[in-house]
């Protein structure tokens, strides 16, 4: 019994240590954001932001284009999430519930698309977007949305297909017998059951769209059109970089998302595996 207890204590201690190491960079970022400029870069680290200041935060949010870029990021993410949810649900239905010519090929295509390095497609995308019918899509948020959908959709379709396959077809057949239309059965029976999968894929789409850098950087050239990742990466002034403010900006962009996902993370794990492992 004592040996088991020793084992348990050892494992718990390891767990706590690992936990501290993993979480430390986040803590360090946040605590640096609260430090006055003189404490940011020191030979001997200051473990706690004491004295603490909020000036870094006020500096960061009063920087040009911060709020505009927040708006841009939120817009891009919302549109990508909404469109990818609708499109991928429809495609997943077709792939999971119908047998048709070219179905296997489409599934392979989806996985292949996901393997394509994005950078390899940036040139043709850029040229195509600048000559898009109805005016150039370069330096426009709509263009970025379309580009993001390209690499978000395959994963969402693939994952949702697993979800749909996991729901017994008899449920829909029962609805059909009761006089529901085929599409009605999908919307009334299947949609509520696939909701957890839809949440999971939407979260994934959210992360992808929120974190993406290269497309936003290449396509959005004017500062009032850029997204937050680009705003942060360009965070320098004429007199060097204000580290405190940079960390405050990073905290402001990272923490709301981290907090939100920490709350819903169970659903992601469930969605990633439930949809993927059955594949």
């Amino acid at each position, binding site marked *: 019994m004592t040996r088991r207890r020793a084992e348990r204590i050892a494992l718990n201690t390891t767990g706590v240590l690992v936990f501290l190491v993993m979480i430390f960079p986040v803590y360090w970022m946040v605590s640096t954001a609260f430090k006055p400029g003189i404490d940011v870069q020191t030979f001997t*680290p200051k473990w706690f932001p004491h004295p603490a200041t909020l000036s870094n935060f006020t500096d960061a949010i009063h920087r040009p284009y911060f709020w505009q870029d927040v708006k841009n990021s939120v817009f891009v993410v919302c549109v990508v999430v909404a469109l990818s949810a609708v499109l991928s649900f429809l495609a997943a239905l077709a792939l999971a519930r119908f047998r*048709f010519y070219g179905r296997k090929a489409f599934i392979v295509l989806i996985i292949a698309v996901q393997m394509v390095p994005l950078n390899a497609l940036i*040139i*043709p995308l850029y040229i195509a977007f600048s000559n898009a019918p109805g005016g150039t899509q370069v330096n426009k948020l709509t263009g970025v949305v379309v580009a993001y959908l390209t690499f978000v*959709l395959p994963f969402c379709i693939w994952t949702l297909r697993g979800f749909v396959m996991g729901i017994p077809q008899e449920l829909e057949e029962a609805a059909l017998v009761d006089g529901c239309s085929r599409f009605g059965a999908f919307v009334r029976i299947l949609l509520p059951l696939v909701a957890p999968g839809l949440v999971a894929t939407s979260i994934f789409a959210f992360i992808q769209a929120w974190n993406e850098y290269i497309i936003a950087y290449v396509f959005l050239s004017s500062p009032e059109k850029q997204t937050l990742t680009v705003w942060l990466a360009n965070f320098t002034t004429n007199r060097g970089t204000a580290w405190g403010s940079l960390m405050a900006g990073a905290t402001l962009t990272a923490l709301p998302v981290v907090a939100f996902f920490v709350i819903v993370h169970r659903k992601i794990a469930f969605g990633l595996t439930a949809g993927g492992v059955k594949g």
Partner: protein
Amino acid sequence: MTAPTSSIAVSPELVQGRWAFLRSQRATSIGLLLPALIFLGVMTQAPFVVTLWYSFHNWILTSPELGHRWVGLDNFRYELTQDPIFRQAIYNTLEITAAIVGGSLVIGLAFALLLNRSFPLRGVARALMIAPFFVMPTVNAVVQKNLFLNPIFGLVNWVATSLGFARTDWLAAHAKFGIISMAVWQWAPFMMLILLAGLQGISDEVREAARIDGAGPVAEFRKVTLPLLGPYVELAVLLGMIYILQLFGEIFVATQGGPGTETTTIPYYVYQTISQANDVGTSSAQGVLAIVFSSIIAALLLRLLTRTFRRGVTG
């Protein structure tokens, strides 16, 4: 509450038999698939075809007088036989991707095993462990580069010098390691998330049975947990690889592919060729080659993984 359309959808099947039903099924399936299919087709296959087309041309944006000339396979020949940086980039990509996927998988598995036990505040600990995955890659790189790996004020050097080691400029002396450690910090929680879901699916009875049969913790892990975890490991590696092969933000912010070409990966090199050399033809050829390489790697890896775990389950 029955909609009028519902009787139409069901009755032809009853009246005309199977064929009509199948036909209506096909019509519905095509209707459902078309939006996503058209979008994916246009957005991914079209750019790929265009990339392929450009890759057979000599087209340098800064030299318009050279025009847009058909050169056949010259770009590919140059990349495969002459360009030393491209070869270096392939090697770097393989090394960095393998290290990140491997490192984060092992660490993620360890985390998952640690977290798959009951202890106070388990939910909170689990939730917080995921946090690194949700930090933007560019933010991660900025933080690690300037607060941790900075040669003078960085925390890592403070620890190293306090322990009596020499002060090191990590991103200059061990750039690859710097990039790998940044990405592992970010991707280990992702692997943990998937593997934890897998661990929770293994019922306690199976383990108990193994224990009763005299399996120690190591044997239990090797013979029971790992084989049952197989599909989840496959999924974690596949998903991780898809995204880690395209790692860009960290390299762009932290090292810009340097020092020299130490951390120049294929995605970064393609970006450099188009944005700094303005060479559309060559960078398109690099892109096409990158697609070919990543497909081969993915296919090989998947086969290897499947074989390993099938053997593990049966043997």
